[in-house]
Structure formats: structure tokens, C-alpha cells
């Protein structure tokens, strides 16, 4: 396939460590196959950099099959790049043309500080989860039969849809307010829709929202950008549901 691939200019954010100022640096890659995934293209670049004695570009990645939520690049002005319903690892080079200049930046938000190059610290999401994204059940050998609590198909489906959130942070990265409400809305909803989640429902939404605010995420203004860029298609309905849960929890006191 040599000679038939794409030649691309990459403008990549380089930052040595959390304290470095950082800047955009231009790189050239040649003969990139349209069948490559975006991360494979990054591998090609890094091999090139290593061979020439330069520091490779640090970026997060793990499963490379779109389910782990680790990859997190802001490509050509969009979280996870120009395609829809995918993470960066599932973005393919056929979305680009020979001669293109591609900008690659880290997910940006004050609550997602850059660790190095394109790697950002998303521990804020973990802390929000720890504030209430769970149910307290004794699992030491006395679990109930799954069918002892009937759940409507509709509620089960909606809870499952909310639970597909992989916590990648694309919603925050794409939001002009750096708001985490789609993430928190999904995590609140997946329990709010099920009977098992009812016991701790009021505390959950209050604690998770309080932690979200504490982490310094912004205020949602309903632009809807998060839903469009979300690799799992998490619906804005989850934010509306979280708002209802929050109102109910505060009215009850």
C-alpha cells in the first residue's frame, strides 16, 4: 500500500507535565492507510518520534474497542473527532482526506487538568461516583433472585441506556461551560429508574451534585452539545430526570 496512503499534518498539543505551559506542535505523517484507526495513526507518529529520538506523544487508551472510556482526544474541534457515536479509538482515517491538517488537543476543563500532552486527569468523575453512584446491598451470599422484583421493560431499557455511559468525559470536554451534567445525569438515572435505587435516591442526587459542584464543573445551559458528542448517545432526558430528582430530593428535605 506504500505511496497510496494519506499525507497529513498533525497539530498536537505538547505539554511536558502538569506545570508546563504547553504549546501546539506540527508533525507530518505520510502514507497513512484509510483503514487505520485514529490511534493506530498516532502509533505510527510515535514510532516515527521514537526512531528520531524525540519524546512520543502521551495519550490515554486502553481497550481500543470503544467500551473502556479511556481515549480522550479533541480532534478538529470535536470530542472524539468528527464521527458520531464513537470514541477516538473507533474513529477511522477514512474520515479524513489526503493533505488534511488535523488538530489534536486534550479534553479541556478546569476540573480535567492536563497531566502530560493529551492525557488529562479525570479522577473528578471517580469522586462523583464515590459520592453516591452505587447502591448499598449486602452481597455476602444472600442476594435475592433477580425476578423477585419485577421491573417494567421500559424502565429497565432506560436504566440500561443510562448505564452505558463509559465516563470518558466527552460531555465535559465539548460543553462550552465544562458542565458534567450529562455524566452525572446518567449515573443518577441508572439507579433512579430501578427499585433498588430508590432507598438512597434523595441522598444520591444531592451528594453527587454537591461533589460535581465541588470539583469545579460548570453550569449546564442546555446547548445539547454533550448528547451529540457522547460516544454512547446518552440522552439529554437524563439531565432533565436528574433535575426532577434534585427538586424532589430538596422539597422532601
Amino acid at each position, binding site marked *: 500500500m506504500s505511496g497510496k496512503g494519506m499525507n497529513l499534518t498533525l497539530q498536537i498539543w505538547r505539554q511536558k507535565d502538569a506545570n508546563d505551559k504547553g504549546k501546539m506542535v506540527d508533525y507530518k505523517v505520510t502514507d497513512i492507510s484509510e483503514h487505520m484507526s485514529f490511534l493506530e495513526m498516532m502509533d505510527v507518529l510515535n514510532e516515527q518520534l521514537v526512531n528520531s529520538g524525540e519524546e512520543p506523544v502521551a495519550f490515554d487508551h486502553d481497550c481500543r474497542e470503544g467500551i473502556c472510556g479511556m481515549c480522550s482526544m479533541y480532534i478538529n*474541534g470535536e470530542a472524539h473527532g468528527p464521527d458520531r457515536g464513537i470514541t477516538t479509538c473507533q474513529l477511522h482515517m477514512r474520515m479524513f482526506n489526503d493533505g488534511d491538517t488535523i488538530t489534536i*488537543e486534550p479534553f479541556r476543563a478546569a476540573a480535567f487538568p492536563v497531566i502530560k500532552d493529551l492525557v488529562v486527569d479525570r479522577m473528578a468523575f471517580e469522586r462523583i461516583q464515590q459520592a453516591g453512584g452505587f447502591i448499598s446491598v449486602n452481597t455476602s451470599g444472600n442476594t435475592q433472585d433477580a425476578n423477585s422484583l419485577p421491573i417494567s421493560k421500559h424502565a429497565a431499557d432506560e436504566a440500561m441506556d443510562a448505564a452505558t455511559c463509559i465516563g470518558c468525559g466527552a460531555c465535559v470536554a465539548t460543553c462550552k461551560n465544562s458542565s458534567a451534567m450529562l455524566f452525572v445525569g446518567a449515573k443518577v438515572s441508572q439507579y433512579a429508574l430501578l427499585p433498588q435505587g430508590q432507598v438512597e435516591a434523595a441522598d444520591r442526587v444531592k451528594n453527587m451534585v454537591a461533589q460535581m459542584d465541588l470539583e469545579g464543573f460548570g453550569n449546564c445551559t442546555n446547548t445539547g452539545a454533550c448528547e451529540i458528542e457522547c460516544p454512547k448517545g446518552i440522552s*439529554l432526558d437524563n439531565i432533565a*430526570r436528574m433535575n426532577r430528582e434534585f427538586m424532589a430530593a430538596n422539597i422532601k428535605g
Partner: protein
Amino acid sequence: MSGILNSSIGRKIAMALSALFLIFFLIIHLAVNITSLFSADLFNELSHFMGTNPLVQFALQPVLVLGVIFHFIMGFVLEIKNKKAVGNISYKRNNGAANSSWMSRNMIYSGIAILAFLILHFIDFWVPEMNHKYIEVLPEDPTRYFGELQHKFVPIWRVAAYVVAFIFLSLHLMHGFTSSLQSMGVSAIRKKFYKNFGLVYSIVIPLGFIIIALFHHFNH
């Protein structure tokens, strides 16, 4: 109350409630003004009622003024907080148009344009009205309102300023209408019914005000 405003969702709900109140107020305001197109007498009668009824003057009017003030102060507060949440470094390349409407991304600017208009509007109508009634305490003439309205729309610069402001109002409402419902927990943004209703509202109401301003400019 302050506890609620300390939370991001609390602020969002407060912003939406003040927005829905103002959205409702615009309907009343237009309903009264539209009568000036076909009946000077009816317009005078309604204006006289609004201007002298104690419930309107001392209960609804203060709520309206506070509602407007709360809405724009909160708008600025949210903008400042969100700028802080975004951080110091912005994207070198950001394709906002790929995932959201221009209106939704520029509420602060359409809002500032409307605020600038409101200052002019208050100087034009509200300040003279307050002066007439409560400061100089001039004799009340129940037929003065129509003439005052016509007189205001003689200068073309004012008509132009009003028309531009109403276009910004329309843009503000195109996002604001469904956004405020969404904040109140109604999944309005992606639902056809609310989207269409919001679009019709955000075009019809400002257009009504534009027609009134133009009508009186050309018919006095």
C-alpha cells in the same frame, strides 16, 4: 433560598423559573400593545387599567422588575462561573456548530443586547410613567397613552433600535424557551412538540412587537 442558589441545579432552576415568568409576561405585554393597531380607545383603557390598578402597580410590577433584574444578574453570574469552569486555556480549534445551535452558545450576547434595549425601553416609557404618577403626580388623563405611544415611534432611530432588539429577543427565545422547560425537568429540547411551539413563540412574539413599532412609525 441561598442554599438552593449554591447548587448548580438550583441556579439552573431559578434561572428557568424567572425565564418562564418573563416568557409569560411577554404574552400579556404583546396582548395589550396589539390593541393599539386597531383601537386607540381599547389601548387607552387597558393601559389605564395596567397603570392604575393597585394589584398590577404594587404587586405584579415589583415582581416583574425583580424578575428581570434577577434573570440578568444570574446570567452574568453563570457566565463568570462557567468561564472559571472552562479554565484558562481554550481550544485552538473548536467546532461548536457541529453539535449545538448558535443561539444556545451565545445567550449571553443576545441577553446583553436585550438588556441594553431594556435600559432604553425603561427610559422611554417606564421612567416618564413613574415620574407622571408618583413623582410629579400630574393629573391623570385616561386617554393620554395612545398619543404617547405614537409619539415615541416617530424617530426612525428608535424604531430601528427596537427592531434590532426584537431580533435578538427572538434569537434568545429560540434557545431560551425549550431550555427553561428542560431545566424544569421536562425533556423539551429534543421533543418536536416543544421545539415547534418554542420556535413559533420566539418568532410570533418579537414579530408582533416589530409590527407595532413599524405601524406607529408609519401611521402617526
